[in-house]
């Protein structure tokens, strides 16, 4: 079964945890419904379709309609998980996301797959490096960016029992497990994965494990880095951000997203008002990406352990110069 396949290297595609948890929930909860825009294999929902054909809705290649249908299914008492490539289910159907999900508070779980630059060579049409800027400003919408399969599963179960609209931003890039097996996702709660008092690195999604690797590298130079997984983008954990601003010399944010309007923007909004501190915002610097694989593009934009390390050291160096 697709949903249980893992790679041999201990790296996992979070879509497998997504599909497995949806099937698991559907087995005991008759309201769980999957809705796709023809994206049967890219959402890894073939297994769901085989087991629960009546609760599997394929609206065709029609995202505006898909989100509306999701809102209607929710009105009818079902819990629809509306799934498709993140670039399409946000941008193409943005007004439905704002009105039918956010404003109307319909109980729809929108799952954006292959977000960020996961589609690599397919190019900027298929990249979704704007979706956090677009979704986190919508009232009532919970926005979650899971970092690994453990968090993906927990976020899916949380979303199913939560009454209200949710956007789950998933990738397809393999990631290692960074959470303990008993980890439970909690909206509005950041996860401090590593304590540290010199500098803070805040990341989410596929970049969390790279941030952890950065902390290892910095430790070798005697620098103690705090690593925070900001999987809950909305609501966001203001307290943990302010605490990091107060207790460390500065904050590096790392996201597979534009540097405008995403995680870096969200953290900057908070520290600017509550405890101004030095920041580095790492992400895609306001450009459409060139051609290249997802891994190549992350490297191209410095979204690697080495890139984050350099940014953290620059931040610390500025502190010294500034005295």
């Amino acid at each position, binding site marked *: 079964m697709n949903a249980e396949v893992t790679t041999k290297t201990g790296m996992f595609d979070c879509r497998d945890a997504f599909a497995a948890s949806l099937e698991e929930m559907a087995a005991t909860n008759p309201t769980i419904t999957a809705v796709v825009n023809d994206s049967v294999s890219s959402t890894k929902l073939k297994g769901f379709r085989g087991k629960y054909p009546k609760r599997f809705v394929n609206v065709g290649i029609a995202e*505006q*309609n898909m989100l509306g*249908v999701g809102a209607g299914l*929710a009105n*009818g008492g*079902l819990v629809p998980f509306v799934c498709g490539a993140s670039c399409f289910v946000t941008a193409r159907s943005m007004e439905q996301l704002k009105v*039918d999900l956010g404003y*109307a508070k319909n109980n729809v779980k929108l799952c954006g797959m292959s977000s960020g630059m996961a589609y690599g060579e397919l190019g900027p049409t298929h990249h979704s490096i704007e979706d956090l800027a677009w979704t986190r400003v919508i009232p009532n919408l919970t926005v979650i960016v899971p970092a690994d399969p453990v968090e993906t599963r927990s976020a899916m179960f949380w979303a199913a029992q939560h009454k209200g609209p949710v956007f789950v931003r998933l990738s397809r890039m393999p990631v290692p497990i960074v959470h303990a097996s008993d980890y439970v996702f909690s909206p509005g709660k950041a996860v401090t994965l590593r304590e540290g008092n010199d500098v803070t690195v805040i990341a989410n999604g596929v970049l969390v494990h790279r941030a952890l690797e950065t902390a290892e590298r910095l430790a070798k130079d005697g620098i103690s880095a705090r690593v925070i997984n900001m999987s809950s983008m909305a609501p966001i954990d203001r307290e943990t951000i302010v605490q990091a601003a107060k207790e460390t010399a500065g904050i590096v944010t790392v996201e597979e997203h534009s540097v405008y309007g995403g995680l870096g923007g969200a953290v900057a909004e908070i520290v600017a008002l509550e405890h101004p501190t030095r920041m580095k915002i790492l992400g895609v610097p306001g450009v459409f990406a060139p051609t290249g694989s997802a891994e190549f593009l992350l490297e191209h934009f410095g979204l690697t352990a080495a890139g984050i390390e350099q940014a953290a050291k620059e931040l610390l160096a500025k502190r010294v110069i500034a005295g």
Partner: protein
Amino acid sequence: MEKGDDVVEVNEMADVETRLRKAATEVRMHALEMVHHARVGHPGGDLSATDILVTLYLAVMRIDPANPAWPERDRFIMSKGHCSGAFYATLAQAGLLDVNLLKTYMDPLSMLNGHPDRNKIAGVEANTGPLGHGLPIATGTALAAKIQDAAWRTFVMTGDGELQEGSNWEAAMTAAQYGLDNLVLIVDRNRIQQGDFTENTIKMDPLADKWRAFGWAVDEVDGHDYKALLQRFQTLPIEPGKPTCIIAHTIKGHGVSFMENKPEWHHGVPTAEQLAAAKVELMEAAR
């Protein structure tokens, strides 16, 4: 026996028509008062949609005003959410909204926003206003009934110019593919949109053929004839296995002679004098 039953039926039909006519007159008066009060609104479309709205809410749909969230209720989705004046006034006629609230239409902090909000009013199923949202949502509620083997029906009203939004045709294909014969679309075919007549803007005709080509069963009806509307709604679906499209031919501004069939009354606001003249005309017609 049969003959006697017919007589009873005819009498009942006449009673229902009388009731609907009275309710529709009140809805039209309220809608015009509301737009005049708010100094903003869409009276032309309010008046074209009124007879269909009161027919559905007072004589067709299975709803429980004491329990608006009754899970088995028929759903109505007002996709042309800008015609909130007639919609709110009809909800009041149906006992789903306190009639005294109509006076607060679009006032600061009123429950009655310019476009309906389901989180503020129990009888509202969908937050509409941006066009092309209602039919996809209605497709979802109809699909939810099919998935759960539930008996409720979904009614949705769109404007005719609204059908220029592509999302409607996406939903049309989905509804046909899933054989949603528990879904009834009523097109308020008043032939006028904000800027001009529909046919001078983007031609909608042959509209019935378009829906047929998309796999729907289609009928056309006079949207101001209660008897014709009641008869049409009594035998649904038109064809098992297909969603129903009823093209209701209406007159924008119907019931107020100086508003009828004039694009400028799409969102024109009546002056006090115009309101008074309109009310006199509506009351005289209701006698």
